[in-house]
């Protein structure tokens, strides 16, 4: 038996191809949206992986350091480092801000997560796991290692708050949960960037403190200087990252820190839950809404196209019915055309998504499983969308071929 659907497609291949391309671009957008969500989840996992931590010690009753601000003293890590099961513990600060490239090159602002890392050396919690160019931080101040996604190059001068940093190393896939590239700088500099006020504010604060009779007592020399010194030092960090010895139960170490040191501690699973279920939940719902709308639009487009193509063949369908073609043969013809259109659209969409995904500013992760699910969804949509056209075709009276 002749494939009526195949012959019709071959006969009007241009119409099918261009319609398929249009539908494909729509499917490509849908696959990309799914890829954006996967990218966000992957960014969250990468953030946790790259921190090198098994436990996150943060300010009590906060979801810090990624989901909420958290502040704790920078000597907390010492007492944690001495606990049983703890291999390493390190202070860390995170601050998402605009980092400005200065110097001879064109000035450029990049939104980045500035990570302050303790001067322990590579392999310690918080440090970038690997470099793709240059070297790690070796000096205590004014050096930076940047993710390549920031667009910075070795030797670039970066302005972070009032200080200038030189990029000495480049790393890859070190991003925040929001997909912003990371810039690693020494902890002391990061603390200053995060907590130190500007000069004018410091002057005003000194004046206010000096004007306070309780802090500026004539008969207590040195009190005012001590207060001012306390106000301008930066003893806070956002979190302490803890690495455990192999085989140690994370919860067994976390529990005493919560109980006796009065901090909130998250294990890796809990931090993953915060990042994925809380931090990107709204974005995920937003993307899910887009996916639903795009699926509906795709279904409407396929239904409209197949319905229009079918209406254009009413006379031929009447002739086919008159000469004894079974309804199921006609229904199969329309169904196959719809499915073929979906298949063309999916192939175009997959290719388009693969090509344009790397151009997106945020990481787009195209997962084979999503493509498979997308293909099944497209096929289901095409089958459902063809029902309207099939109904119209089956209602055609064979007498229409005769007229009268």
């Amino acid at each position, binding site marked *: *038996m002749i494939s009526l659907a195949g012959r019709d497609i071959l*006969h*009007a291949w241009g119409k099918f191809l261009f319609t398929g391309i249009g539908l494909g671009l729509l499917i490509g957008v849908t696959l990309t949206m799914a890829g954006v969500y996967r990218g966000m989840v992957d960014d969250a996992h990468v953030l946790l992986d790259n921190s090198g931590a098994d436990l996150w010690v943060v300010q009590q009753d906060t979801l810090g350091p990624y989901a909420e601000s958290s502040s704790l003293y920078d000597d907390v890590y010492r007492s944690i480092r001495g606990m049983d099961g703890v291999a390493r513990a390190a202070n860390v600060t995170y601050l998402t801000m605009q980092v400005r490239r200065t110097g001879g090159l064109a000035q450029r602002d990049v939104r980045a997560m500035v990570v302050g890392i303790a001067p322990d050396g590579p392999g310690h919690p918080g440090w970038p796991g690997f470099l793709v160019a240059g070297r790690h931080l070796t000096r205590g101040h004014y050096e930076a290692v940047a993710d390549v996604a920031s667009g910075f190059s070795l030797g670039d001068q970066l302005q972070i708050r009032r200080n200038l940093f030189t990029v000495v190393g480049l790393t890859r896939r070190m991003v925040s949960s929001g997909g912003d590239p990371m810039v690693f700088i020494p902890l002391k500099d990061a603390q200053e960037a995060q907590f130190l006020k500007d000069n004018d504010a410091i002057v005003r604060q000194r004046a206010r403190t000096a004007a306070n009779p309780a802090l500026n007592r004539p008969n207590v020399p040195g009190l005012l200087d001590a207060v001012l010194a306390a106000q301008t030092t930066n003893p806070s960090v956002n979190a302490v990252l803890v690495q455990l010895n192999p085989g140690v139960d994370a919860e067994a170490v976390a529990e005493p820190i919560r109980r006796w040191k009065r901090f909130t501690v998250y294990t890796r699973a809990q931090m993953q839950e915060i990042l994925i279920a809380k931090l990107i939940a709204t974005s995920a719902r937003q993307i899910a809404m887009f996916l639903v709308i795009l699926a509906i639009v795709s279904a409407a487009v396929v239904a409209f196209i197949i319905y229009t193509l079918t209406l254009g063949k009413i006379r031929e369908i009447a002739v086919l019915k008159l*000469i004894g073609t079974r309804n199921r043969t006609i229904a199969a013809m329309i169904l196959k055309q719809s499915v073929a259109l979906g298949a063309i659209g999916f192939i175009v969409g997959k290719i388009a998504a693969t090509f344009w995904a790397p151009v997106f500013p945020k990481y787009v992760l195209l997962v084979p499983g999503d493509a498979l699910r997308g293909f099944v969804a497209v096929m289901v949509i095409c089958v459902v969308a063809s029902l309207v056209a099939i109904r119209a075709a089956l209602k055609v009276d*064979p*007498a229409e071929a*005769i*007229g*009268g």
Partner: protein
Amino acid sequence: MAEQTTEEPGIRIEGLGKRYGRGDTAVDALRQVNMSVAPGEVVGLIGPSGSGKTTLLKCLGAIIEPTAGTMTLGGEVIYDNGWRINDLRALRRDRIGFVFQAPYLIPFLNVTDNIALLPMLAGQPNREARRRARELLDALDVGHRALAMPSQLSGGEQQRVAIARGLVNRPPVILADEPTAPLDSERALAVIRILNDMARQFETAIIVVTHDEKIIPTFRRIYHIRDGITYEEQGEGRDLH
């Protein structure tokens, strides 16, 4: 089951009626249709607009159901105050050929497959169906266009292909609905000549519904239909060769 008769094959219609609606609003589109067309014979069916030609054609084509009378096709009673055939679709496919005013070829099938589609639908192997289609195309002198698409054919060629499609399953009857309407005199006469030749060659009864004054003199027998009633008269039977 269909009831077999001892009459000759072809088509015979007796007292056929078709009523639309009920009660006061009922309309009798066909009142008393009597026709008999022998195998190999071509008859004309003529009538003014609204006389019931199209309704009769639809009844003969098993597209709509008459409300009275009998129809015998190829010696088999197919209607006797009710269909005697269960599968009307198969009846149309296998035992009735259609030729329309416009060829209505399937635009996405080539000439051969337009014809071969019918036997394929009836379950014949593609190769055999195409062989029969080629034979008919050769008989109709359009064998050289076997692989062309319908849009590449002239109007006359398209109508010949449509005739071949009507003949391909060797039906005992062909219903031709104004097959020469869009053609000039020469081509119209050529089509009627082909229909006559094919009727003789394949022993098929052909009923040609027409308004076309050019071809009416070619029929040996003509049925006039007026207000749903048929009247038979002898035609001129002008020589087509």
